[in-house]
Protein backbone atom coordinates (compact mmCIF):
# COMPACT_ATOMS: atom_id res chain seq x y z
CA UNK A 1 0.00 0.00 0.00
CA UNK A 2 1.21 3.48 -0.84
CA UNK A 3 2.09 5.20 2.41
CA UNK A 4 3.50 8.50 1.32
CA UNK A 5 3.06 10.04 -2.10
CA UNK A 6 4.58 13.44 -2.77
CA UNK A 7 4.40 15.23 -6.08
CA UNK A 8 6.29 18.45 -6.89
CA UNK A 9 7.11 19.53 -3.37
CA UNK A 10 8.58 23.02 -3.39
CA UNK A 11 9.88 24.77 -0.30
CA UNK A 12 10.70 28.45 -0.47
CA UNK A 13 12.21 30.83 2.04
CA UNK A 14 10.69 34.30 2.05
CA UNK A 15 13.31 36.98 2.45
CA UNK A 16 12.90 40.73 2.25
CA UNK A 17 14.01 40.83 -1.40
CA UNK A 18 13.12 37.56 -3.08
CA UNK A 19 11.94 34.08 -2.40
CA UNK A 20 14.75 31.53 -2.26
CA UNK A 21 13.77 28.15 -3.59
CA UNK A 22 15.52 25.70 -1.28
CA UNK A 23 13.72 22.60 -2.54
CA UNK A 24 12.67 22.57 -6.16
CA UNK A 25 9.84 20.26 -7.30
CA UNK A 26 10.79 17.04 -5.57
CA UNK A 27 8.56 14.00 -6.00
CA UNK A 28 8.76 10.61 -4.41
CA UNK A 29 6.60 7.88 -3.00
CA UNK A 30 7.06 5.29 -0.34
CA UNK A 31 5.33 1.95 0.06
CA UNK A 32 4.59 0.16 3.29
CA UNK A 33 7.54 -1.73 4.74
CA UNK A 34 10.13 -0.12 2.48
CA UNK A 35 13.35 1.60 3.44
CA UNK A 36 14.18 4.61 1.33
CA UNK A 37 17.13 6.91 1.57
CA UNK A 38 17.49 10.58 0.78
CA UNK A 39 21.12 11.22 -0.02
CA UNK A 40 22.75 14.57 -0.57
CA UNK A 41 25.30 16.94 0.81
CA UNK A 42 24.63 19.57 3.42
CA UNK A 43 22.46 22.33 2.03
CA UNK A 44 20.73 20.04 -0.42
CA UNK A 45 17.43 20.29 1.44
CA UNK A 46 17.15 16.75 2.80
CA UNK A 47 16.25 17.83 6.31
CA UNK A 48 13.84 20.43 4.94
CA UNK A 49 11.86 17.75 3.12
CA UNK A 50 11.67 15.66 6.28
CA UNK A 51 10.55 18.63 8.33
CA UNK A 52 7.97 19.56 5.70
CA UNK A 53 6.46 16.08 5.89
CA UNK A 54 6.23 16.22 9.66
CA UNK A 55 5.09 19.84 9.48
CA UNK A 56 7.50 21.46 11.90
CA UNK A 57 8.85 24.23 9.66
CA UNK A 58 8.06 27.73 10.86
CA UNK A 59 6.08 30.34 8.97
CA UNK A 60 8.98 31.83 7.05
CA UNK A 61 9.05 28.73 4.86
CA UNK A 62 6.41 28.51 2.17
CA UNK A 63 5.54 24.92 1.30
CA UNK A 64 3.64 24.11 -1.87
CA UNK A 65 2.97 20.72 -3.36
CA UNK A 66 0.71 19.32 -6.04
CA UNK A 67 -0.06 16.56 -3.64
CA UNK A 68 1.25 15.28 -0.36
CA UNK A 69 -0.74 12.19 0.39
CA UNK A 70 -0.39 10.19 3.56
CA UNK A 71 -2.30 6.91 3.10
CA UNK A 72 -4.73 8.60 0.75
CA UNK A 73 -5.26 11.71 2.85
CA UNK A 74 -3.87 14.99 1.55
CA UNK A 75 -1.86 16.47 4.40
CA UNK A 76 -1.86 19.93 2.83
CA UNK A 77 -5.65 20.21 3.01
CA UNK A 78 -6.04 19.20 6.64
CA UNK A 79 -6.49 21.79 9.34
CA UNK A 80 -3.41 22.16 11.53
CA UNK A 81 -5.17 20.37 14.38
CA UNK A 82 -6.13 17.35 12.25
CA UNK A 83 -2.75 17.25 10.65
CA UNK A 84 -1.01 17.27 14.01
CA UNK A 85 -3.15 14.34 15.11
CA UNK A 86 -2.50 12.27 11.99
CA UNK A 87 1.21 12.95 12.03
CA UNK A 88 1.72 12.31 15.73
CA UNK A 89 -0.09 9.01 15.42
CA UNK A 90 1.67 7.57 12.42
CA UNK A 91 4.95 9.37 11.76
CA UNK A 92 7.92 9.71 14.05
CA UNK A 93 11.16 11.50 13.47
CA UNK A 94 14.65 11.10 14.85
CA UNK A 95 16.36 14.46 14.73
CA UNK A 96 19.90 15.19 13.72
CA UNK A 97 21.59 16.23 16.91
CA UNK A 98 20.41 13.97 19.74
CA UNK A 99 22.04 15.66 22.69
CA UNK A 100 20.73 19.02 21.53
CA UNK A 101 17.21 17.85 20.74
CA UNK A 102 16.53 16.34 24.13
CA UNK A 103 15.23 18.63 26.84
CA UNK A 104 18.23 19.54 29.00
CA UNK A 105 16.11 20.33 32.05
CA UNK A 106 14.22 17.03 32.33
CA UNK A 107 15.36 13.57 33.23
CA UNK A 108 15.33 10.87 30.56
CA UNK A 109 12.53 8.93 32.25
CA UNK A 110 10.13 11.87 32.14
CA UNK A 111 10.98 12.63 28.55
CA UNK A 112 10.26 9.08 27.39
CA UNK A 113 7.14 8.76 29.56
CA UNK A 114 5.79 11.91 27.93
CA UNK A 115 5.77 10.28 24.51
CA UNK A 116 3.84 7.17 25.58
CA UNK A 117 0.34 6.99 24.12
CA UNK A 118 -2.41 7.63 26.66
CA UNK A 119 -4.37 4.51 25.84
CA UNK A 120 -5.40 1.65 28.07
CA UNK A 121 -4.66 3.47 31.26
CA UNK A 122 -6.71 1.45 33.66
CA UNK A 123 -6.89 1.33 37.42
CA UNK A 124 -5.75 3.78 40.02
CA UNK A 125 -2.86 6.11 39.55
CA UNK A 126 -0.43 3.88 41.48
CA UNK A 127 -1.08 1.04 39.10
CA UNK A 128 -0.92 3.37 36.13
CA UNK A 129 2.40 4.71 37.36
CA UNK A 130 3.80 1.23 37.65
CA UNK A 131 2.62 0.36 34.19
CA UNK A 132 4.18 3.49 32.79
CA UNK A 133 7.50 2.63 34.43
CA UNK A 134 7.41 -0.88 33.00
CA UNK A 135 6.72 0.37 29.52
CA UNK A 136 9.53 2.91 29.63
CA UNK A 137 11.86 0.20 30.85
CA UNK A 138 10.77 -2.14 28.07
CA UNK A 139 11.33 0.56 25.46
CA UNK A 140 14.78 1.37 26.67
CA UNK A 141 15.74 -2.30 26.72
CA UNK A 142 14.47 -2.65 23.20
CA UNK A 143 16.91 -0.05 21.88
CA UNK A 144 19.80 -1.81 23.54
CA UNK A 145 20.48 0.11 26.73
CA UNK A 146 21.20 -2.33 29.52
CA UNK A 147 21.73 -0.23 32.64
CA UNK A 148 18.28 1.33 32.50
CA UNK A 149 18.25 2.67 36.05
CA UNK A 150 21.30 4.85 35.65
CA UNK A 151 20.22 6.12 32.24
CA UNK A 152 16.61 6.87 33.14
CA UNK A 153 17.71 8.82 36.19
CA UNK A 154 20.13 11.12 34.37
CA UNK A 155 19.95 14.32 32.36
CA UNK A 156 20.91 14.38 28.66
CA UNK A 157 24.25 16.11 29.27
CA UNK A 158 25.38 13.26 31.53
CA UNK A 159 25.04 10.70 28.76
CA UNK A 160 27.20 10.03 25.75
CA UNK A 161 26.06 10.92 22.26
CA UNK A 162 25.39 7.29 21.38
CA UNK A 163 23.12 6.73 24.37
CA UNK A 164 21.28 9.99 23.62
CA UNK A 165 20.71 8.77 20.09
CA UNK A 166 19.26 5.50 21.37
CA UNK A 167 16.99 7.42 23.75
CA UNK A 168 15.76 9.45 20.78
CA UNK A 169 15.00 6.23 18.91
CA UNK A 170 13.16 4.85 21.94
CA UNK A 171 11.03 7.99 22.00
CA UNK A 172 10.35 7.72 18.30
CA UNK A 173 9.19 4.10 18.40
CA UNK A 174 7.09 4.50 21.56
CA UNK A 175 3.92 4.90 19.53
CA UNK A 176 4.88 2.22 16.99
CA UNK A 177 4.65 4.60 14.04
CA UNK A 178 4.07 3.47 10.47
CA UNK A 179 6.83 5.68 9.14
CA UNK A 180 10.07 6.53 10.86
CA UNK A 181 12.05 9.45 9.48
CA UNK A 182 15.66 9.20 10.58
CA UNK A 183 17.59 12.42 9.93
CA UNK A 184 21.30 11.53 9.93
CA UNK A 185 20.91 9.19 12.91
CA UNK A 186 24.55 8.11 13.00
CA UNK A 187 26.72 11.10 12.14
CA UNK A 188 27.92 11.56 15.72
CA UNK A 189 28.53 7.89 16.45
CA UNK A 190 31.55 5.67 16.10
CA UNK A 191 31.44 2.48 14.11
CA UNK A 192 30.35 -0.06 16.72
CA UNK A 193 27.45 2.05 18.01
CA UNK A 194 26.54 2.92 14.45
CA UNK A 195 26.26 -0.76 13.59
CA UNK A 196 24.03 -1.27 16.64
CA UNK A 197 21.71 1.55 15.60
CA UNK A 198 21.47 0.17 12.07
CA UNK A 199 20.75 -3.33 13.33
CA UNK A 200 17.99 -1.91 15.51
CA UNK A 201 16.41 0.04 12.65
CA UNK A 202 16.68 -2.95 10.38
CA UNK A 203 14.96 -5.26 12.84
CA UNK A 204 12.19 -2.69 13.35
CA UNK A 205 11.68 -2.62 9.62
CA UNK A 206 11.55 -6.39 9.29
CA UNK A 207 9.62 -7.32 12.43
CA UNK A 208 7.17 -4.45 12.71
CA UNK A 209 6.93 -3.70 9.01
CA UNK A 210 7.85 -0.12 9.75
CA UNK A 211 8.78 2.04 6.77
CA UNK A 212 11.91 4.07 7.18
CA UNK A 213 12.98 7.21 5.39
CA UNK A 214 16.71 7.51 6.01
CA UNK A 215 18.44 10.81 5.49
CA UNK A 216 22.16 10.61 5.18
CA UNK A 217 25.17 11.94 3.38
CA UNK A 218 27.06 8.68 3.54
CA UNK A 219 26.11 6.35 0.73
CA UNK A 220 27.97 3.38 2.11
CA UNK A 221 25.89 3.26 5.27
CA UNK A 222 22.65 2.63 3.50
CA UNK A 223 23.60 0.57 0.50
CA UNK A 224 23.07 -2.81 2.12
CA UNK A 225 19.55 -2.45 3.36
CA UNK A 226 17.65 0.31 1.58
CA UNK A 227 15.24 -0.49 -1.23
CA UNK A 228 15.46 2.83 -2.98
CA UNK A 229 17.73 5.83 -3.08
CA UNK A 230 16.90 9.42 -3.95
CA UNK A 231 19.90 11.60 -4.65
CA UNK A 232 19.45 15.32 -4.09
CA UNK A 233 21.69 18.15 -5.12
CA UNK A 234 20.97 21.73 -4.05
CA UNK A 235 17.28 21.05 -3.63
CA UNK A 236 16.83 19.28 -6.97
CA UNK A 237 16.24 15.57 -7.26
CA UNK A 238 18.95 14.42 -9.63
CA UNK A 239 18.44 10.67 -9.60
CA UNK A 240 16.12 8.19 -7.97
CA UNK A 241 15.61 4.49 -8.23
CA UNK A 242 16.25 1.06 -6.74
CA UNK A 243 19.50 0.91 -4.77
CA UNK A 244 21.25 -1.77 -6.76
CA UNK A 245 20.58 -0.02 -10.06
CA UNK A 246 21.83 3.32 -8.79
CA UNK A 247 25.01 1.64 -7.63
CA UNK A 248 25.60 -0.45 -10.71
CA UNK A 249 24.49 2.00 -13.40
CA UNK A 250 24.45 5.62 -12.27
CA UNK A 251 23.05 7.90 -14.96
CA UNK A 252 23.73 11.30 -13.44
CA UNK A 253 27.28 12.74 -13.23
CA UNK A 254 26.68 13.78 -9.62
CA UNK A 255 25.69 10.28 -8.52
CA UNK A 256 28.76 8.96 -10.23
CA UNK A 257 30.92 11.50 -8.40
CA UNK A 258 29.37 10.46 -5.08
CA UNK A 259 30.04 6.80 -5.79
CA UNK A 260 33.58 7.46 -6.91
CA UNK A 261 34.41 9.36 -3.74
CA UNK A 262 33.91 6.15 -1.76
CA UNK A 263 37.15 4.23 -1.42
CA UNK A 264 35.27 0.93 -1.12
CA UNK A 265 33.50 1.03 -4.43
CA UNK A 266 36.22 2.42 -6.61
CA UNK A 267 38.10 -0.76 -7.31
CA UNK A 268 41.51 -0.47 -8.83
CA UNK A 269 42.37 2.65 -6.85
CA UNK A 270 45.89 2.22 -5.52
CA UNK A 271 46.90 3.03 -1.97
CA UNK A 272 47.08 6.81 -1.42
CA UNK A 273 45.99 7.61 -4.94
CA UNK A 274 43.82 10.74 -5.21
CA UNK A 275 40.04 10.31 -5.40
CA UNK A 276 37.83 11.51 -8.18
CA UNK A 277 36.33 14.78 -6.95
CA UNK A 278 34.11 17.38 -8.55
CA UNK A 279 35.73 20.79 -8.69
CA UNK A 280 34.35 23.76 -6.79
CA UNK A 281 31.96 23.87 -3.88
CA UNK A 282 28.23 23.62 -3.34
CA UNK A 283 26.64 26.99 -4.21
CA UNK A 284 24.99 28.90 -1.40
CA UNK A 285 21.23 29.36 -1.44
CA UNK A 286 21.55 33.05 -2.36
CA UNK A 287 23.55 32.32 -5.49
CA UNK A 288 21.94 29.31 -7.10
CA UNK A 289 22.75 28.80 -10.77
CA UNK A 290 19.83 28.69 -13.19
CA UNK A 291 18.86 25.51 -14.96
CA UNK A 292 20.56 22.39 -13.73
CA UNK A 293 22.14 23.41 -10.46
CA UNK A 294 25.10 21.10 -10.92
CA UNK A 295 25.92 22.95 -14.14
CA UNK A 296 29.01 24.98 -13.13
CA UNK A 297 30.67 21.94 -11.55
CA UNK A 298 29.58 19.29 -13.99
CA UNK A 299 32.29 17.78 -16.22
CA UNK A 300 29.75 17.15 -18.99
CA UNK A 301 27.95 20.49 -18.94
CA UNK A 302 26.95 21.96 -22.29
CA UNK A 303 24.85 24.83 -23.54
CA UNK A 304 21.56 23.04 -22.96
CA UNK A 305 22.21 22.77 -19.23
CA UNK A 306 20.99 26.32 -18.53
CA UNK A 307 17.48 24.91 -18.91
CA UNK A 308 16.49 22.70 -16.01
CA UNK A 309 16.28 19.12 -17.32
CA UNK A 310 13.07 17.17 -16.93
CA UNK A 311 12.94 13.95 -14.99
CA UNK A 312 13.15 11.02 -17.41
CA UNK A 313 11.98 7.65 -16.26
CA UNK A 314 13.19 4.26 -17.34
CA UNK A 315 12.14 1.06 -15.55
CA UNK A 316 11.55 2.79 -12.24
CA UNK A 317 14.88 4.56 -12.44
CA UNK A 318 14.50 8.29 -12.97
CA UNK A 319 17.14 10.93 -13.52
CA UNK A 320 17.29 14.58 -14.43
CA UNK A 321 20.08 15.18 -16.90
CA UNK A 322 20.36 16.29 -20.52
CA UNK A 323 23.41 14.13 -21.06
CA UNK A 324 23.08 10.97 -18.97
CA UNK A 325 26.09 8.70 -18.63
CA UNK A 326 24.17 5.76 -20.05
CA UNK A 327 21.70 6.50 -22.81
CA UNK A 328 18.48 4.51 -22.93
CA UNK A 329 17.57 2.75 -26.11
CA UNK A 330 13.98 3.37 -26.93
Amino acid sequence: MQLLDIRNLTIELQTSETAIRAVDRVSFSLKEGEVHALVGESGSGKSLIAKAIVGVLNERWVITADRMHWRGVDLMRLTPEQRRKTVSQDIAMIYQDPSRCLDPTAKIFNQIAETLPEVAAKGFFLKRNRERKDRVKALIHKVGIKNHEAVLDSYPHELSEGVCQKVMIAMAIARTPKLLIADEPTTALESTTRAQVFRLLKSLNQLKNMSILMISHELEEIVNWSHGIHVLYCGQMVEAGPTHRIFSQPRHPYTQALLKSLPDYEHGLAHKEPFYALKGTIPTLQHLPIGCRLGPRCPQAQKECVVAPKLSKHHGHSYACHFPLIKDIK
Partner: protein
Amino acid sequence: MQPLLKVQALSKTFNMRAGIFSRKKFDVLKNISFSIGKGETIAIIGETGSGKSTLAKLLVGAYSADSGQILLENNTIENNGNRDAQCRYIRMIFQDSATSLNPAVTIAEMLDDCLKFNTDFDKTQRSEKIGSTLLKVGLLVDHQQYYPHMFSVGQLQRVALARALILDPKVVVLDEALSSLDPSVRAQIVNLLLKLQLETGLTYILITHHLSLVRHISDQLVVLNKGEIVEYGATETIFQNPQSKVTQRLLSC
Protein backbone atom coordinates in the same frame (compact mmCIF):
# COMPACT_ATOMS: atom_id res chain seq x y z
CA MET B 1 65.09 4.50 8.48
CA GLN B 2 65.21 6.85 11.43
CA PRO B 3 61.70 7.51 12.71
CA LEU B 4 60.51 11.11 12.74
CA LEU B 5 58.27 10.93 15.75
CA LYS B 6 58.74 8.45 18.52
CA VAL B 7 56.40 8.00 21.44
CA GLN B 8 57.66 5.99 24.38
CA ALA B 9 55.58 4.62 27.26
CA LEU B 10 53.22 7.56 27.41
CA SER B 11 50.71 7.48 30.29
CA LYS B 12 48.06 9.87 31.46
CA THR B 13 45.81 9.76 34.50
CA PHE B 14 42.92 12.04 35.27
CA ASN B 15 41.60 12.69 38.76
CA MET B 16 37.88 12.22 38.85
CA ARG B 17 35.47 13.21 41.57
CA ALA B 18 34.13 10.18 43.39
CA GLY B 19 32.40 11.78 46.34
CA ILE B 20 32.32 15.12 48.10
CA PHE B 21 35.93 14.93 49.26
CA SER B 22 37.27 11.74 47.76
CA ARG B 23 38.80 11.51 44.32
CA LYS B 24 39.57 8.53 42.24
CA LYS B 25 42.15 8.01 39.55
CA PHE B 26 41.23 7.17 36.02
CA ASP B 27 43.90 5.90 33.66
CA VAL B 28 43.13 7.31 30.24
CA LEU B 29 46.29 6.13 28.53
CA LYS B 30 48.59 3.36 29.67
CA ASN B 31 52.01 2.79 28.26
CA ILE B 32 51.52 4.00 24.69
CA SER B 33 54.48 3.60 22.36
CA PHE B 34 54.71 3.91 18.61
CA SER B 35 56.88 5.54 15.97
CA ILE B 36 56.33 7.06 12.53
CA GLY B 37 58.68 7.84 9.70
CA LYS B 38 58.74 10.96 7.52
CA GLY B 39 55.95 11.18 4.99
CA GLU B 40 53.92 8.39 6.53
CA THR B 41 50.42 8.37 7.92
CA ILE B 42 49.45 6.63 11.10
CA ALA B 43 45.80 6.08 11.90
CA ILE B 44 44.42 5.70 15.40
CA ILE B 45 41.08 3.99 15.76
CA GLY B 46 39.07 2.90 18.77
CA GLU B 47 35.71 3.32 20.42
CA THR B 48 34.67 6.46 22.23
CA GLY B 49 36.39 6.69 25.59
CA SER B 50 39.39 4.73 24.40
CA GLY B 51 41.64 7.76 24.76
CA LYS B 52 42.09 8.74 21.10
CA SER B 53 41.49 12.43 21.59
CA THR B 54 43.54 12.54 24.79
CA LEU B 55 46.44 11.04 22.87
CA ALA B 56 46.06 13.73 20.19
CA LYS B 57 46.06 16.47 22.82
CA LEU B 58 49.13 14.99 24.48
CA LEU B 59 50.99 14.94 21.18
CA VAL B 60 50.33 18.60 20.40
CA GLY B 61 51.00 19.63 23.98
CA ALA B 62 47.54 20.72 25.08
CA TYR B 63 47.84 18.26 27.97
CA SER B 64 51.04 17.16 29.61
CA ALA B 65 51.68 13.48 30.17
CA ASP B 66 52.28 11.90 33.56
CA SER B 67 55.14 9.78 32.36
CA GLY B 68 56.82 8.84 29.12
CA GLN B 69 58.66 10.66 26.37
CA ILE B 70 57.87 12.09 22.97
CA LEU B 71 60.83 12.38 20.64
CA LEU B 72 60.86 14.37 17.42
CA GLU B 73 63.90 13.65 15.25
CA ASN B 74 65.75 12.35 18.31
CA ASN B 75 65.14 15.53 20.32
CA THR B 76 63.08 14.94 23.42
CA ILE B 77 60.18 17.38 23.32
CA GLU B 78 58.30 15.91 26.25
CA ASN B 79 59.85 14.10 29.16
CA ASN B 80 57.68 12.93 32.06
CA GLY B 81 55.38 15.90 31.77
CA ASN B 82 57.95 18.60 31.02
CA ARG B 83 57.18 20.01 27.63
CA ASP B 84 59.42 21.92 25.35
CA ALA B 85 57.63 25.21 24.72
CA GLN B 86 57.85 24.91 20.94
CA CYS B 87 54.51 24.25 19.31
CA ARG B 88 55.49 24.69 15.71
CA TYR B 89 56.46 21.18 14.70
CA ILE B 90 53.33 19.29 15.69
CA ARG B 91 50.07 21.01 14.74
CA MET B 92 46.45 19.98 15.01
CA ILE B 93 43.21 20.32 13.05
CA PHE B 94 39.97 19.98 14.96
CA GLN B 95 36.74 18.26 14.11
CA ASP B 96 34.50 21.24 13.61
CA SER B 97 36.39 24.00 11.86
CA ALA B 98 33.35 26.29 11.95
CA THR B 99 33.53 26.51 15.74
CA SER B 100 37.28 26.22 16.20
CA LEU B 101 38.05 29.44 14.29
CA ASN B 102 37.58 32.80 15.97
CA PRO B 103 34.63 34.52 14.25
CA ALA B 104 35.78 38.01 15.22
CA VAL B 105 39.11 38.15 13.38
CA THR B 106 39.96 37.93 9.70
CA ILE B 107 41.94 35.03 8.30
CA ALA B 108 45.00 37.27 7.86
CA GLU B 109 45.00 38.34 11.53
CA MET B 110 44.54 34.79 12.69
CA LEU B 111 47.42 33.46 10.62
CA ASP B 112 49.54 36.50 11.51
CA ASP B 113 49.18 35.71 15.22
CA CYS B 114 50.58 32.23 14.68
CA LEU B 115 53.65 33.71 13.01
CA LYS B 116 54.09 36.53 15.55
CA PHE B 117 54.22 34.18 18.50
CA ASN B 118 56.37 31.51 16.95
CA THR B 119 58.79 33.08 14.50
CA ASP B 120 60.92 36.21 14.23
CA PHE B 121 59.72 37.18 10.75
CA ASP B 122 59.21 40.88 10.03
CA LYS B 123 56.03 42.28 8.57
CA THR B 124 56.71 41.72 4.87
CA GLN B 125 57.98 38.21 5.45
CA ARG B 126 54.85 37.42 7.43
CA SER B 127 52.45 38.63 4.77
CA GLU B 128 54.40 36.76 2.10
CA LYS B 129 54.20 33.59 4.14
CA ILE B 130 50.45 34.01 4.68
CA GLY B 131 49.91 34.45 0.95
CA SER B 132 51.96 31.43 0.00
CA THR B 133 50.30 29.20 2.62
CA LEU B 134 46.83 30.15 1.43
CA LEU B 135 47.83 29.30 -2.14
CA LYS B 136 49.24 26.00 -0.95
CA VAL B 137 45.90 24.87 0.51
CA GLY B 138 43.97 25.91 -2.59
CA LEU B 139 42.63 29.29 -1.48
CA LEU B 140 43.40 32.71 -2.95
CA VAL B 141 45.54 35.48 -1.49
CA ASP B 142 42.45 37.72 -1.42
CA HIS B 143 40.81 35.39 1.06
CA GLN B 144 43.00 37.01 3.75
CA GLN B 145 40.49 39.74 4.40
CA TYR B 146 37.58 37.34 4.85
CA TYR B 147 35.97 36.40 8.14
CA PRO B 148 35.29 32.72 8.92
CA HIS B 149 31.52 33.02 8.36
CA MET B 150 32.11 33.96 4.71
CA PHE B 151 33.51 30.54 3.86
CA SER B 152 31.78 27.26 3.12
CA VAL B 153 32.54 24.20 5.25
CA GLY B 154 35.09 22.81 2.83
CA GLN B 155 36.91 26.13 2.57
CA LEU B 156 36.91 26.46 6.37
CA GLN B 157 38.64 23.13 6.62
CA ARG B 158 41.23 24.50 4.19
CA VAL B 159 41.67 27.58 6.40
CA ALA B 160 42.17 25.31 9.40
CA LEU B 161 44.74 23.40 7.39
CA ALA B 162 46.46 26.69 6.49
CA ARG B 163 46.65 27.59 10.17
CA ALA B 164 48.29 24.25 10.85
CA LEU B 165 50.71 24.46 7.93
CA ILE B 166 51.83 28.07 8.26
CA LEU B 167 54.56 27.18 10.77
CA ASP B 168 55.99 24.48 8.46
CA PRO B 169 55.20 21.63 10.83
CA LYS B 170 56.59 18.14 10.54
CA VAL B 171 53.54 16.39 11.95
CA VAL B 172 49.85 17.28 11.57
CA VAL B 173 47.29 15.68 13.87
CA LEU B 174 43.82 15.34 12.32
CA ASP B 175 41.34 14.75 15.13
CA GLU B 176 38.15 13.64 13.32
CA ALA B 177 38.88 16.45 10.88
CA LEU B 178 37.43 14.57 7.93
CA SER B 179 34.40 12.85 9.38
CA SER B 180 32.00 15.76 9.49
CA LEU B 181 32.55 16.71 5.86
CA ASP B 182 30.34 15.87 2.92
CA PRO B 183 31.62 13.13 0.61
CA SER B 184 32.64 15.30 -2.34
CA VAL B 185 34.25 17.93 -0.09
CA ARG B 186 36.01 15.17 1.82
CA ALA B 187 37.38 13.76 -1.40
CA GLN B 188 38.80 17.21 -2.24
CA ILE B 189 40.41 17.63 1.20
CA VAL B 190 41.83 14.10 1.16
CA ASN B 191 43.33 14.78 -2.26
CA LEU B 192 44.86 17.99 -0.93
CA LEU B 193 46.32 16.19 2.09
CA LEU B 194 47.78 13.45 -0.09
CA LYS B 195 49.26 16.00 -2.47
CA LEU B 196 50.90 17.92 0.38
CA GLN B 197 52.31 14.72 1.80
CA LEU B 198 53.79 13.80 -1.54
CA GLU B 199 55.32 17.24 -2.07
CA THR B 200 56.60 18.15 1.36
CA GLY B 201 56.84 14.85 3.22
CA LEU B 202 54.37 15.76 5.93
CA THR B 203 53.49 13.15 8.51
CA TYR B 204 49.84 12.74 9.48
CA ILE B 205 48.32 11.28 12.60
CA LEU B 206 44.77 10.49 11.61
CA ILE B 207 42.14 9.94 14.27
CA THR B 208 38.87 8.85 12.76
CA HIS B 209 36.19 6.20 12.72
CA HIS B 210 35.87 6.17 8.95
CA LEU B 211 37.41 2.81 8.23
CA SER B 212 37.55 2.79 4.45
CA LEU B 213 39.36 6.11 4.56
CA VAL B 214 41.82 4.68 7.09
CA ARG B 215 42.51 1.80 4.78
CA HIS B 216 43.03 4.08 1.83
CA ILE B 217 45.41 6.68 3.22
CA SER B 218 47.21 5.27 6.25
CA ASP B 219 50.41 3.24 6.36
CA GLN B 220 50.26 2.15 9.97
CA LEU B 221 47.38 1.52 12.31
CA VAL B 222 47.04 1.75 16.08
CA VAL B 223 43.98 0.22 17.69
CA LEU B 224 43.23 1.62 21.13
CA ASN B 225 40.95 0.06 23.68
CA LYS B 226 40.47 1.50 27.17
CA GLY B 227 43.74 3.39 27.00
CA GLU B 228 45.89 0.52 25.83
CA ILE B 229 47.24 -0.41 22.42
CA VAL B 230 45.68 -3.72 21.45
CA GLU B 231 47.10 -3.85 17.98
CA TYR B 232 49.79 -1.94 16.14
CA GLY B 233 51.23 -2.59 12.71
CA ALA B 234 50.87 -2.04 9.00
CA THR B 235 47.30 -1.10 8.04
CA GLU B 236 46.80 -3.66 5.33
CA THR B 237 47.99 -6.58 7.48
CA ILE B 238 45.65 -5.64 10.32
CA PHE B 239 42.71 -5.19 7.96
CA GLN B 240 43.31 -8.56 6.38
CA ASN B 241 44.13 -10.44 9.52
CA PRO B 242 42.97 -8.76 12.73
CA GLN B 243 44.32 -10.60 15.77
CA SER B 244 42.46 -9.29 18.78
CA LYS B 245 38.72 -9.46 19.46
CA VAL B 246 38.41 -5.68 19.77
CA THR B 247 39.87 -5.09 16.33
CA GLN B 248 37.75 -7.79 14.78
CA ARG B 249 34.62 -6.18 16.20
CA LEU B 250 35.67 -2.70 15.07
CA LEU B 251 36.51 -3.79 11.57
CA SER B 252 33.55 -6.09 11.04
CA CYS B 253 30.98 -3.32 11.11
